[in-house]
């Protein structure tokens, strides 16, 4: 269906205590936990957003990736119809397990609304939307593995149908200290063509 080509404006990967922006290492450290690593990333990039510290790990991961790509791109963009299309394997399971432990023992029963709200994978889309004031299309998908063809297709649909001007899309997986974020900002203009071969290559880089 795609008549017009779309392009990868920029991309970032966060995994194994390292942040890559457009394929280059921009931050790396040695930490034992994602909590410590994510705090270091927050400080290194001089992010000033105290709400970050109440987020669960999946939201922190997605938020940091979005921060790197949207902050740079927004400086010369007045219009902000940037859709969010995210996917992962473990949904919000990391927080689900944490919440479950708060209700499994009737003698030690302490369900917290502040934890419960993060037992939804799409909360990370809400966090990014609030920070960047994206009143835009958003959707969260679950797949067994990263699905570059689906991501390519769905981004193109949003751009072709004028549902969005740009799409921030990608994979944000977090479970039990194992994590990987791979996000792309897809635009109608650019140099790197947006297609599934390219997405697969960049994801595996």
């Amino acid at each position, binding site marked *: *269906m795609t008549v017009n080509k779309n392009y990868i404006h920029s991309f970032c990967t966060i995994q194994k205590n390292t942040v890559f922006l457009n394929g280059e290492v921009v931050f790396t450290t040695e930490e034992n936990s994602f909590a410590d690593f994510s705090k270091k990333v927050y400080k290194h990039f001089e992010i000033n957003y105290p709400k970050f510290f109440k987020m669960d790990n999946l939201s922190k991961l997605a938020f940091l990736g979005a921060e790197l790509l949207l902050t740079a791109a927004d400086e010369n963009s007045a219009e902000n119809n940037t859709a*969010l299309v995210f996917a992962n*394997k*473990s*949904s919000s*399971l990391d927080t*689900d*397990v944490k*919440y*479950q432990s708060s*209700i*499994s023992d*009737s003698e030690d*029963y302490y*369900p*917290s*609304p502040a934890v*419960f*709200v993060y*037992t*939804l*994978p*799409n*909360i990370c*889309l*809400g*966090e990014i*939307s*609030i920070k*960047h*004031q*994206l*009143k*835009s*299309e*958003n*959707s*969260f*998908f*679950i*797949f*067994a593995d990263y*699905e570059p063809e*689906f991501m390519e*297709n*769905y981004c*193109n*649909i949003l751009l*072709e*149908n004028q*549902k969005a001007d740009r799409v921030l899309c990608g994979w944000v997986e977090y479970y039990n200290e194992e994590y990987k974020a791979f996000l792309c900002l897809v635009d109608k203009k650019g140099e790197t063509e947006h297609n599934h071969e390219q997405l697969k290559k960049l994801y595996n880089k």
Partner: protein
Amino acid sequence: MIKEVFITETNCITPIGFDVAVNIKNIGKAVSGIQLQNNPKLLNTPFYAAVINDAELDLAFAKVTSAEGYSRLEKMMILALEPIIKKSNIDLNERTAFILSTTKGNVTALENQENIDPAYLNVLAKKVADFFGFKNEPIVVSNACVSGILAVSVAKRLIQANLYDNVFVVAGDEVSKFVLSGFNSFQAMSNLPCKPYSVNRTGVSLGEATAAVLVSSNKENAKIKIIGDGSINDANHISGPSRTGEGLYRSIQSALAEAKIDSNQIDYISAHGTATPYNDEMEAIALNRLGLENVPVNSFKGYYGHTLGASGLLETVIGIESVNQNTLFTSLGFDTIGVSQSIKVIEKKENADIRYFLKTASGFGGCNTAVLFEKVN
């Protein structure tokens, strides 16, 4: 030319019926599935919820298959899909997709710490997909309480992009200790059967259900046409709706623009109406901003409770019957209007010509979805 997309088959499994006809009959008689539950395994105090009877579920499942090892939710999903897959007689080949939408899936599997694999949504989807033999990898939509209606929008978009000819969509969620305790911790549960849009509403009654539809490019057997959709975030708060209804307002606008119709052409709205003070108020504001205050609107939560990710698809299935039977169903639980801006809540079942039908939903994370449908002749 943009491809036309239709819903050609529907089904639902709910506490008030295991097919669409029985559900409609009960809704017509104002029968609610919400009952007082006294089940300390789920919640230590009695609570109102719409729950499917286990024995009835097992009996119905045994009529379909002798296979074992399926969870309650999986049985409910298989029962919703089975008759429409059979009736449609469509090859489950590369041109047929399967979308499963849910908020919490098999979250009860977390109670068994030895093996939490069934709690993975892709595992749930694969299990249901393999029961029927879908060739494509399942697509799971998990976007809080808009999941079921967002799945319809996704199916329509994938067909329009010519990636598939047919998409089977199932949506489902069950009443669980996990979700009950969470809504309870938010103090969002009603101490009576929920009362959407009423002045004395105090919160949700939870419910469980599954619904399934076939979304198709083939007009033959079309029950309704999907003509526009939008899913736009409030960008306001993760656990409360926008006070201006911004995301819902924009989602409806996006659907209207795509359908190329004006808001004054909409004949009927099946809204979200969870009966929490903030949700219902937000919806009333968004509808007024679009000049939709005089369009008949109902919430089906008074019959089913809030079935989370299932609700959007279940209420679409019932809404399609409203359109085709030219009937506006009572918004059960409503008495005195309790939102600050007037809306036309359906107080009594009545006949009406319905050409354009709007379905909306909103959820945690600030998400909203609106889908517009048009009657087919």
